[in-house]
């Protein structure tokens, strides 16, 4: 066995290659007849759902990548596979923070995979209840990831929680209130603060403003944009809304029926979409 030549650490923080997720028969037989050209993600041969296939991307620190598509396009599946909420059927997922990117984290056992969520990858979900314990105070929700990596000083935990909450503009006099008593926008801010608690190098955002009132959503977007700029985190933003993608990301993938149909710089793609489906999405956003 040859000793691997020590490589320079990669420039990306997250790299995904050939990612696929099939619900049902995972064999190659399920692939034929699926994808945008067939207008379906359901295999005519096996009935399996090819929720995502052949997805490649990487994200550098300080960069934000968007994934856009309608519901059922596979964008959220990709995010859940990267987050570890579900296990991808195929492909490689690598993090610079894990063995300098040489380990496919898809191969890790569930326990090791969950540990990555402590300080390597964070996720913000559309539904704050998915990322927060609503019966615990805002500060307590942030204490969770802090204590998970070994913080044991009450005073310092409170200082850190306060710092994060003020960064996401949650009034500090609400710090000790249960999150259940918060408005939707405020809950989302707490979820963002919790996700950033351990300074993860990779942040996944799944429809972070969907379901919020337009004015509230705008505030949260503003906040996210500022955070992405100043923290240097590598972000993946999944959304059906070009407004969100345009505001937060520099590059974008367009997904339809489980496949990437187009990718490029966000502003160029908005300016001059090539794929008919992208054109349709852009037209809808501009309409």
């Amino acid at each position: 066995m040859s000793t691997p030549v020590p490589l320079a650490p990669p420039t990306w923080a997250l790299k995904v290659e050939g990612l696929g997720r099939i619900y049902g028969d995972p064999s190659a037989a399920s692939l034929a007849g699926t994808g945008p050209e067939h207008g379906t993600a359901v295999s005519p041969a096996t009935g399996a759902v090819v929720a995502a296939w052949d997805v490649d991307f990487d994200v550098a620190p300080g960069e934000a990548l968007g994934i856009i598509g309608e519901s059922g396009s596979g964008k959220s599946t990709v995010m859940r596979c990267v987050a570890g909420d579900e296990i991808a059927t195929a492909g490689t997922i690598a993090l610079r923070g894990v063995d300098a990117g040489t380990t496919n984290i898809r191969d890790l056992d569930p326990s090791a995979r969950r540990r990555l969520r402590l300080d390597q990858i964070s996720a913000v979900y559309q539904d704050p209840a998915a990322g927060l314990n609503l019966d615990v105070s805002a500060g307590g929700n942030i204490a969770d990831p802090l204590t998970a990596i070994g913080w044991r000083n009450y005073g310092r935990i409170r200082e850190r929680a306060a710092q994060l909450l003020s960064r996401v503009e949650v009034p500090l006099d609400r710090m000790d209130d249960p999150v259940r008593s918060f408005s939707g926008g405020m809950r989302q801010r707490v979820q963002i603060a919790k996700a950033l608690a351990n300074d993860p190098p990779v942040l996944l955002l799944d429809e972070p403003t969907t379901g919020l009132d337009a004015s509230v959503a705008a505030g949260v977007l503003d906040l996210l944009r500022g955070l992405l700029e100043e923290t240097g985190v590598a972000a993946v933003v999944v959304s059906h809304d070009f407004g969100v993608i345009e505001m937060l990301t520099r590059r974008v993938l367009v997904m339809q029926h489980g496949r990437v149909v187009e990718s490029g710089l966000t502003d160029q793609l908005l300016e001059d979409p090539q794929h008919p489906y992208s054109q349709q999405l852009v037209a809808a956003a501009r309409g």
Partner: protein
Amino acid sequence: MTTYPTTEMPSTDTAVRRTDRLAGPAPRPGIFDELSKREIRRAVLSGIAIPGYQVPFGSREMPVARGWGSGGLQVTLSLVGQDTRLKVIDQGEDAGVNASNLRRLVVGHVGCEEETDTREADVIQSRHRIPEQPLQDGQVLVLQVPGAEPLAGIVKNMDEQRRMHAEADYSKMWVRLYEDIVHNGLITNAAGYPVLVEGRYVMTPSPIPRWDVPKLNHSEGVTVLSAGREKRIFAVPPHTLVEPLTFEDRPFEVERTPGAACRLCGSDDTYIVQEPGPDGTFSTWVCSDTDFCRRRRAGDAPEVTALEAALAHTREESTI
């Protein structure tokens, strides 16, 4: 319908003889058989091998109700022999109804020796207390456990509880303590205070007062905890690190009432419980450990209690 070829049943005499040959002579009025005891001992050994880990076992029905020490009784019965000196206490007292009955039950079954002096006992079965007398090498403390799972109040799903233990994922427990301080100004866990054993497993020490928790740390004796209803056994071997869960800037507090002392022996360094005073209010105090109190009065008790010894040990360690 399937029909089976059948033969006649053997005569009763033959059946009885065969029974004897298979199972040995008829036991004295039994509680449980040797094979069952062996199974319990195996669970105890597993518990000692993995300090703080809850070992499932096939808990048997005992002559006492579940919740009245059926778990502790099974462990005690598996450990004692005829030459064992057995002490049984409830709330620190040898004379309580439950303690007396359990002790009589075991003594009647096994023929071992009754003991009340903590120093002389080989096995001490207890509910809710650890004696004030420091345990010695060779002594076994068996604690009765009503609820074995320290995470039960945090997550209900047993698979999730097991996952959390397996991955030492205790952040939800810490959040619980954090929230307690936020809302109450202090950690309000009273008895059964959660501990971390040898830096690995979070364990309930059974509903002993916080007063007794430091005694588990680096104890000379073995502590076996047994929950009959929940069918789990766990243990703290001698010289094992046992730390109450608390934040660095929130010191663990034991029950102390300034100025209060036992009205019988005058101790203010023992765990004391309230008693009605002359005015009918709960204004006076007595030792909960009746053996230690009696020996204090007789001048036969050590100056340094198990708690003080344990705290001194902890201080020593933290200065190293």
